[in-house]
């Protein structure tokens, strides 16, 4: 292989590697949970994930993440996963992933430090602002207008019971 052909190959390999790295997001299990074949509670269990176990998040559907892990691939409840866990010793990669996925990671949260905050002291010292309150009130939407807004987004109301507190009688 001569030098001229090797460079494009190396380049495409590099791009492929970046592509793969950007597509997946890191995560770790907040608690032990089942790995399911499909994103449903009743789906076949294909494996189990331990608390703290590292997962690679490939996709999201409703309340489920499609993940890849040492226990295999499948779907796991998103509420059992802490998203965006950086791989040990690769802080830069985690920052890059955060940027690439369009999600603000630790970096941008820290970046807001020291700009206009809203600390306990700021709140305590606050002085009543009637003019600003009137302005806020002027933006109110009527129930009917909100209904139209929802319809334009194809949102339809549905009946759903409140969730019981965990530990309460199920």
């Amino acid at each position, binding site marked *: 292989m001569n030098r001229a052909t090797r460079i494009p190959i190396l380049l495409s390999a590099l791009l492929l590697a970046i592509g793969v790295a950007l597509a997946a997001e890191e995560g770790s299990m907040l608690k032990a949970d089942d790995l399911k074949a499909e994103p449903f509670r009743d789906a076949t269990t294909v494996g189990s994930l331990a608390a703290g176990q590292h997962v690679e998040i490939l996709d999201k559907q409703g309340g489920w993440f499609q993940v890849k892990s040492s226990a295999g691939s499948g779907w796991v409840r*998103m509420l059992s996963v*802490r998203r965006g866990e950086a791989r040990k010793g690769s802080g830069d990669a985690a920052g890059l992933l955060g940027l690439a996925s*369009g999600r603000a990671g630790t970096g941008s*949260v820290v970046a807001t430090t020291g*700009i206009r905050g809203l600390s306990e002291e700021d709140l305590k010292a606050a002085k009543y602002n009637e003019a600003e*309150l009137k302005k806020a009130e002027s933006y109110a939407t009527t129930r009917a207008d*909100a*209904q139209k807004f929802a319809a334009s*987004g194809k*949102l339809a109301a549905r009946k759903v019971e409140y969730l019981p507190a965990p530990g309460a009688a199920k």
Partner: protein
Amino acid sequence: MNTSMARRIMIALVPAVLLLGAGSAAAAIDLGQELQKALRPKTPDQAGPSRPSSSAGGGIDLGGLFGFSPEEEVAIGRQAAGNLLGAAPLVKDATLQKYVNNVGRWIASQSERPDLTWHFGVIDSNDINAFAAPGGYVFVTKGLYRLLQSESELAGVLAHEIGHVVAKHHLKILQQSRLVDMSSKLVAKTAGENPVIKNLIGNGAEIFSRSLDKNAEYEADRMAVTLAARAGYDPFGLPTVLQDIGHAAKDASGVQLLFKTHPLPDDRLTHLGDAVDGRLDRLQGPTLAQRFYHIRP
């Protein structure tokens, strides 16, 4: 004993302690109630709306035992909201403010208090936080809004705050202070600053820096996914935001107050996961990422 069991026992204990604490004040409350009855006629809404089974109240509707009148609630909310806006004004973007009012009002319409005059706003602060005041005043900081990627995430955040208003979490705390001065008339005038309410809610907007009981936060989270589902959205907007905020270091200044006044995101996710337990699997819905209004840089 495993940790999940320990958590459940903790949850069972907290309302019990709350009730014990409230018990000694109960006699005084009854007196206050009598006094209130004597002072003005009872309005239909005084007993409060039908509420979800509450872990924060230990299953007993404390808000119904001794309520503020709807007028008093709005007067308290106005004062608190006016103070908050004194600390951080609205982001100067009418399209943005109108948009959050549309999203918020639609979700509030699915709650047990659909006819409250609801107000929503984005305030000009880079802190990551959201606030609810009695009477239906809900504010999100610009810092938090910027983290959002879809309308369903905004819906989740607003729904958590709507949950606090519907369950009257703040009013229950304020009621305890009111015992000190129960004869005072809260609604002395309709607009402007009210000295009696000012006295009740404390200095400036410090009411927003007080923590609610952590079970009240968990309850608002559970209400939020339910309300978002009722409104037709993907119910998992709030959890997505919590996962984002979970990235932030505990001591990063943008989240200091949020983390001080709320359980940490990981705990909220775990708790919500235990509550959801697959119940929302069949309730998918759009995230409306395309329609989401992105704030100007």
